[in-house]
């Protein structure tokens, strides 16, 4: 086996040492620092981006909370306004209803008074007509023209104070 040919050991070892040391130096000086820099930069970037995102999220949360607060405030305000408006309207309503009722009552009263007056008038008219009729009827029936005063008394008596 060529592997056990000891005469080849020395040149192999000699070049192995040189080349491995060279590789080691290149790796240590150039290649590995570069890769570790890249990885570090990426890690830093990720961390800072995450931090930034965290800050933005906090900000957004704050905005959201503010919004919610404003919304709630507005809502209570609106409710209060609605309530007030309702109350106002109810008050207005009752006032108007009262006014109408009062108006109606006044009108009813006036109408009733008018009706009573007309009734009185009519009844007064009725007395005179009844007296005249009674006198005329008496004159026709018995030929005696009764005294106007008597007839009037008689009519009043017959009507029994109804007029």
């Amino acid at each position, binding site marked *: *086996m*060529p*592997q*056990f*040919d000891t*005469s*080849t*050991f*020395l*040149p*192999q*070892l*000699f*070049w*192995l*040492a040189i*080349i*491995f040391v*060279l*590789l*080691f130096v*290149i*790796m*240590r000086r*150039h*290649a*590995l620092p*570069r*890769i*570790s*820099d*890249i*990885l570090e*930069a*990426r890690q830093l*970037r990720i961390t800072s981006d995450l931090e930034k995102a965290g800050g933005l999220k906090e900000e957004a949360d704050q905005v959201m909370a503010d919004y919610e607060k404003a919304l709630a405030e507005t809502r209570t305000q609106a409710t209060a306004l609605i309530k007030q408006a309702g109350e106002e309207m109810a008050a207005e309503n009752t006032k108007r209803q009262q006014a109408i009722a009062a108006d109606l009552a006044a009108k009813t009263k006036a109408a009733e008074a008018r009706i009573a007056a007309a009734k009185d008038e009519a009844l007064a008219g009725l007395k005179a007509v009844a007296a005249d009729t009674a006198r005329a009827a008496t004159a026709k029936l018995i030929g005696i023209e009764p005294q106007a005063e008597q007839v009037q008394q008689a009519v009043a008596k017959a009507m029994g104070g109804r007029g």
Partner: protein
Amino acid sequence: MAAEEHSPLAQFEIKPLVSLRLGDLDLSYTNSALFMTIAMVLAASFLLLATRRSALVPGRWQSMAEISYEFVANMIRDNVGQEGRKYFPFIFSLFMFVLFGNLLGMIPYSFTYTSHIIVTFAMAAVVFIGVTVIGFKKHGLHFLSFLMPAGVPIFMAPLIVPIEILSYFTRPVSLSLRLFANMTAGHTMLKVFAGFVALLGVFGVVPLLLVAALTGMELIIAFLQAYVFTILTCVYLNDALHLH
């Protein structure tokens, strides 16, 4: 020599490309060294070119570079912990060197330097010696308590200590043999079956399919062995840093 040329083991032969002698010492630049160079250049350009733009959102190549970085970094974090970070460049280089060596070997007519015991043993020895030095540096002579696990009754010491010493010193052997044997066996097997393809004529389809399947498996092994080599390095390092 003609028969030797086509033997399944011919692919492991070391051929000097540029002869170099320092006195009595043979320091020739061989095919092994060539593929080590290619692996180093590939690994370095892969990582450097992929990260050239340092994009925040990585492209495909940059993703791959980052994934290899994090793969090894996670391995160290999980197996060694924070203290292991210091050794990250070395372990990462080791992983890359073995991985690219294994993968390059999968290209036909290429050379697999990780199939040579001397290479894998040298790497394992560096890991072994380094880890031992780290252990002694961190714990002083207390590091020797590693050979006597806590909770073992003292009268067991004559039995346990030699076993632990033996197991400790087998580490570099098993570490290097595992990689070397896997690579050598896999490539030899591929070569043997590929030889059958030509020998069997029409029926060569059967070994051909087998070779295709084995190539897929060898690719997995190429990655897996690099992973195993690296993770065992992490485990040994962890033992040295944290004892048992």
